[in-house]
């Protein structure tokens, strides 16, 4: 009997299995989706995301989410954002292509900065966002915000500095390496020119012709002489081209050495600050006071702005080239998942329109943020992502307004302008001092641009009814803090302006406030002559170490540069001399023999 190809009786168990899967979906889909979304959101944002409930509304092609809480990645006891209800209206067709196109997103009951009942867990492991949060935490720490150290000046007896701690010494090492590299590379190139045979031959030919009577050479002899001169001139032209190429390389090397040497000034300023901090001396300059008092709070704002900017750069990449990302987490190796965007097709993720209703404390006015064209493939959508915040109900002076444009079509060109007026500004501590500021209601504004990797942003905080509060420890203030306390306690106005510039990876910050000069003057009076002398000693010690460890390297670099430039100049001069001499000889040869012009 022939064997059957199909096992028909297995269909019933398979159908039962399908029914079981259907029942499992009905019972568990919402819960599984909620967990998956919370998990993906946590990985995506690098901070804990909680969702109270999630309903998949298959018949409506929509998803509803409630009780969303996104922890502040830099403050686990607070939520960055909390939303009561979210409705996501999906376009069903792209789902078949595993793409999420949201036609309408509506988020209601949004509050920011709310307190968490249970502190958020730090997000462990790799992934872009957790690593980005860690690097932004380190980024904030890298700023050398000088504390208002008020160590009694008369305790300064000696300054002991390990030269390896100095930025100038590290920079000197870089100069030494650059010098060695330039000397070796360009020295070899100059030696490799081997101009001596060409130049000697040219010289000998010129001298021989100078002693020759052209009329005695005859036509054939003169033609040979002209050919020799032209051939040698051609060799000299070739030599000149090679010398020019080496000269360009030497000029480039000189630029590198000069720029490395120029960086010593900044390094020396860092060294002054480092040694001053090492011995506990305050910086008595006004600008430094702004950084010291308000640098930390300004950085906290910029840190959050950088967090969003980094997310936008990562998840909204320009261009349509295939993109590789780590594969899904599983027992097997994750591998790499490559996405292949295509023109005129759906992007992997797109929010066509969205509205976020904001709840502002202490106001009945209604505000909302409107989002358009938020996508992971800006190159496919062709329009920048736009976010605008404004009032949608109520009247009175505007409390919140702002707009942001994320243009990632081709190049990254992002800009943001936002202002929050009349709402409470969170209080903050002054680093190194036992009191804090409670600004109360005031105005916070942020404006900034991101062009490629270059960032420029300005943050201003202004309040006119500031309260200065001593720490609750009850400890008596020392003489320094007490003096400062006397300066600031009566000041009701506070105005801080912080500027961020540079690149996302190496930004610079500068903070100014209306208190800088007053505090600086008080510090000077507190520190008095002893501080001035101590600061002079710090500078002298740094200068001494600089003289001892750095100056020889700079001299060497300067000497190498000068030597290379001189060698090239000598070669140029020699080539030019021989060329001029030969051209003169050629002129006399081609002037004609007996009135006949030679070809």
């Amino acid at each position, binding site marked *: 009997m022939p064997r059957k190809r*199909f*096992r028909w009786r297995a269909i019933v168990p398979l159908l039962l299995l399908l029914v079981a899967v259907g029942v499992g979906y009905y019972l568990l889909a919402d819960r599984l989706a909620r967990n998956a979304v919370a998990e993906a959101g946590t990985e995506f944002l690098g901070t804990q995301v909680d969702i109270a409930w999630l309903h998949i509304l298959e018949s409506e092609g929509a998803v509803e989410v409630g009780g969303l809480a996104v922890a502040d990645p830099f403050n686990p006891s607070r939520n960055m954002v909390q939303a009561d209800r979210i409705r996501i209206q999906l376009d069903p067709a792209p789902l*078949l292509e595993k793409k999420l196109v949201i036609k309408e997103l509506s988020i209601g009951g949004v509050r920011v900065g709310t307190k968490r009942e249970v502190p958020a867990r730090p997000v462990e492991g790799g992934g872009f966002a957790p690593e980005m949060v860690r690097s932004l935490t380190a980024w904030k720490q890298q700023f050398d915000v000088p504390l208002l150290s008020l160590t009694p000046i008369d305790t300064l007896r000696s300054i002991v500095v390990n030269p390896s701690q100095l930025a100038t010494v590290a920079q000197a090492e870089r100069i030494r390496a650059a010098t060695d590299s330039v000397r070796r590379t360009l020295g070899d190139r100059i030696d490799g020119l081997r101009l001596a045979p060409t130049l000697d031959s040219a010289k000998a030919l010129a001298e021989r012709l100078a002693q020759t009577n052209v009329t005695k050479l005859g036509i054939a002899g003169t033609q040979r002489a002209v050919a020799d001169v032209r051939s040698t001139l051609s060799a000299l032209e070739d030599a000149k081209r090679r010398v020019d190429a080496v000269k360009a390389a030497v000029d480039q090397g000189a630029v590198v050495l000069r720029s490395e040497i120029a960086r010593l000034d900044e390094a020396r300023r860092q060294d002054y600050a480092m040694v001053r901090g090492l011995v506990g001396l305050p910086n008595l300059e006004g600008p430094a006071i702004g950084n010291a008092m308000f640098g930390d709070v300004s950085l906290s704002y910029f840190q959050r702005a950088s967090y969003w900017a980094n997310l936008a750069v990562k998840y909204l990449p320009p261009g349509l080239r*295939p993109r590789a990302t780590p594969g899904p987490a599983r027992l097997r190796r994750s591998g*790499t998942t*490559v*996405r292949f965007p*295509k023109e005129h097709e*759906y992007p992997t993720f797109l929010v066509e329109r969205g509205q976020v209703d904001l709840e502002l404390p202490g106001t009945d006015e209604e505000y909302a943020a409107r989002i358009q064209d938020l996508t992971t493939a800006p190159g496919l959508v062709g329009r920048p992502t736009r976010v605008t915040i404004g009032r949608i109900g109520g009247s009175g002076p505007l409390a919140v307004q702002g707009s942001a444009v994320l243009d990632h079509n081709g190049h990254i060109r992002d800009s943001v302008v936002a202002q929050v007026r009349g709402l409470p500004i969170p209080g903050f501590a002054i680093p190194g001092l036992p009191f804090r500021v409670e600004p109360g209601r005031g105005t916070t504004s942020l404006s900034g641009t991101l062009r490629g990797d270059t960032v420029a942003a300005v943050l201003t905080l202004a309040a006119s009814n500031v309260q200065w509060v001593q720490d609750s420890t009850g400890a008596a203030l020392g003489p320094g803090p007490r003096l400062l306390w006397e300066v600031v306690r009566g000041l009701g106005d506070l105005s801080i302006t912080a500027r961020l510039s540079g690149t996302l990876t190496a930004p610079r910050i500068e903070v100014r406030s209306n208190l800088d000069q007053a505090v600086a003057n008080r510090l000077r009076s507190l520190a008095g002559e002893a501080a001035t002398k101590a600061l002079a000693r710090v500078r002298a010690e740094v200068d001494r170490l600089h003289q001892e460890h750095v100056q020889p390297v700079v001299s060497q670099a300067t000497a190498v540069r000068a030597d290379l430039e001189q060698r090239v100049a000598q070669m140029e001069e020699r080539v030019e001399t021989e060329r001029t001499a030969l051209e003169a000889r050629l002129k006399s040869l081609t002037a004609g023999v007996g009135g006949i012009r030679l070809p």
Partner: protein
Amino acid sequence: MLVLLKFLQSLVKALHTEGTPGQVALGMTLGAALGLTPLMSLHNLLIVAAIFLLNVSVPGAVLGLTIFTPLGFILDPVFDRIGLVILEATPFQGLWTTLYNEPVVPFSNFNNSVLLGSIIGYVALAVPIFFAARFGVARYRATLGARVQRSKWYKAITASKVYNVYRLFRPE
């Protein structure tokens, strides 16, 4: 221990069913797909359906899964490398872009390096696995099969309830 026991059960069942060596070998070959490629993948749904619906040896498939799962883990770095090279190869960019933007196809996760590499590895190994398995089963039945069938532990396994469930799916 449990894994070992399961393996022995699969081994015994596969080698002593009424199925032909070809049916057992085909079952093992399909089971190897489940073992060599990431299990929770769309294509494996088709493989599972094929195992149940085609008249192949289900214990053979379980045996294939058991043998090739550890091999899949071991070969993952190789699959990853092969898959990535093919995904990034310029001549295939048009194909991948088209497939990625077609309905349903992206759910296969073909654009994952390990999955694509393991499928390619499986396709390359499927025919050798089939013929090696068919030869091995035939040789076993001709030499050791009868002696094992008379042993007490074989009878214990075949008398168990699990065996009755298995009989639903044995080759006809």
